[in-house]
């Protein structure tokens, strides 16, 4: 074991930055890292290597808690970064106030992907609870993306039934009865729908849906935008205890701030994430349809509450699952 330990490298020796992110951002950060490396070299003369790690958002957060030396985390939900703050104390509880827009440099939303022709006539959330409609969405317990999907449906139902929790719950219950398969992650669900041809509709992140349509051509899939959806806000943060130890705080902060610059926003938009910066948003307006969006804070009072009420062990989602068996 002593011999093996010598193979592990000692932190802080090389100019590297580890960005621990979630699955669908792989291509986004490949481009962004290249841009930032160039920017940093011009600015400081330092040549840096940015390492990426991708996986399910919750799993990635857990690895950081367990000691993965992430300089920055760019995850799907604020809840996951909160967990890092709470369970391991690696960054302060107020991390979300350190960067603009609640530390969410880009946003997305939840839309529907249907097969060409839309034979089941899916227009809005109400169509998803009809009997005989097969809905594909990953497991909210294991996928951050799926939690956005679930909360979007819940938020729609709350509005529709005038904040009647019982009826909203019945709505979501019926929706999940139409789900034949729980993939563990968003990409798995996309594959199930796109490659295997299972299901009539895929509830997906907008960026995933746009990517699928682009990859397989417009003649196979259509995007359906619901009347109301959630503003998905993937947050970013540097991990204080790691950057302090490795002496990379400056670089990590600059890396995240670069996301808010026009260059960073361009890259995000090119990868189908909705930019925050008005000028860039204007430029790419044609790509993102207008949807009325609600935020998680407005409807659920923030991630912590949403997580506790819906996704904790024995929470509403578990109760729905148990009732539906």
């Amino acid at each position, binding site marked *: *074991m002593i011999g*093996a*330990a010598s*193979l*592990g*490298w*000692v*932190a802080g020796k090389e100019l590297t930055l*580890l960005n621990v992110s979630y*699955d669908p951002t*792989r*291509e986004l950060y490949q481009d962004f890292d290249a841009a930032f490396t160039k920017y940093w070299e011009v600015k400081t003369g330092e040549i840096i290597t940015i*390492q*990426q*790690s*991708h*996986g399910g958002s919750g799993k*990635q957060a857990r*690895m950081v*808690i*367990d*000691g*993965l*030396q992430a300089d920055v985390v760019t995850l799907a939900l604020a809840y996951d970064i909160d967990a890092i703050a709470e*369970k*391991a104390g690696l960054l302060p509880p107020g991390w979300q106030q350190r960067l603009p827009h609640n530390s969410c440099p880009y946003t997305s939303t939840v839309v529907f992907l249907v097969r060409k022709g839309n034979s089941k006539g899916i227009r809005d959330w109400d169509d998803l609870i009809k009997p005989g409609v097969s809905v594909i969405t990953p497991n909210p317990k294991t996928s951050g993306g799926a939690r956005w999907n679930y909360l979007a449906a819940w938020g729609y139902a709350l509005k529709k039934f005038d904040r009647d929790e019982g009826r909203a719950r019945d709505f979501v219950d019926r929706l999940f009865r139409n789900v034949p398969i729980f993939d563990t*992650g968003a*990409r*798995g669900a*996309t*594959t199930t729908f*796109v*490659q295997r041809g299972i299901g009539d509709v895929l509830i997906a992140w907008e960026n*995933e849906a746009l*990517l*699928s349509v682009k*990859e*397989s051509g417009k003649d196979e899939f259509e995007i359906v935008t619901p009347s109301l959806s959630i503003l998905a806000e993937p947050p970013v943060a540097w991990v204080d205890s790691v950057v302090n130890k490795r002496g990379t705080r400056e670089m990590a902060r600059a890396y995240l701030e670069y996301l808010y610059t026009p260059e960073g926003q361009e890259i995000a938009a090119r990868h189908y994430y909705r930019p925050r910066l008005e000028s860039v948003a204007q430029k790419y307006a044609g790509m993102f349809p207008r949807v009325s969006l609600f935020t998680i804070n407005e409807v659920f009072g923030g991630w912590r509450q949403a997580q506790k009420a819906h996704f904790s062990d024995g929470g509403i989602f578990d109760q729905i699952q148990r009732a539906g068996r």
Partner: protein
Amino acid sequence: MTGIIKTSSAASVKQSRRGAEESPLAKWALIAVALAFSLVFLLLPLVNVMAQAFVKGWACYWSSLTQPDSRAAIRLTLIVAAISVPLNVLFGLAAAWAIAKFEFRGKSLLVTLIDLPFSVSPVVVGLMFIVLFGLQGFFGKWLGAHGIKIIFAVPGIVLATIFITFPFVARELIPVMQATGTEQEQAALTLGASGWQTFWHVTLPSVKWGLIYGIILCNARAMGEFGAVSVVSGHIIGRTETMPLRVEALYQGATGASTVAAFCRGELAGAPGLVYAGDQDFPRMETGERISGSRSRIVDR
């Protein structure tokens, strides 16, 4: 003296076995059932993997192979296998020697413990190492303070791989060593050989094919392990991604073409095993023949 002594064994080897053989109907029915089963559980999956891999042709295969990150993953996988397989071989030889050649109390408990990693879920394996070495684990704080990385680094991947492939060599060797008995070793001792000499010149050659087969299985599993390694790897692209993780990453990476690329790599990760599988047919048959051959000779006497 020469020539007087001839055994009649040759004459008795080939005999008609009509009375002790199935009817042709039963025989072909059995073959048909076996083939049907193999079609569903072996041939079709194999062909499917191949078909997926080559659906976009060699270009895709080649490009997914030559990406720098893929090359790094291949290198890491080879390193991990190069560490874990020899260690498990060493263990397998020692365990098989102790278990096959000696009687002692608690032997069956030991055998059960050796089998145990077979049945432990890779997820649990990963969890165990996290409980030990994770930042919140038993040694996490100490390791962190000393700058030693085990999980989310190569040592953790090696440990998980060793655990997963732990029983393969021992499991192959124990029955073979038991079958060969100890007379040859004793003969070597009477001829003046030391313990090591006996082991190298007599024991090792006589279990050669069992050992090779065990190494092949161990290696295939070491290079193919996904679950446990996934938990402890950290998935840092180009640094702690092994081939199977890379397969998954490519599968998750983007829809469409990349999935195909993922299958390319899946096929690639499987390929060494298959090559071995084809090769091992010969040695294993030979071992079988040798063992059965020596038995029938004993019966002849």
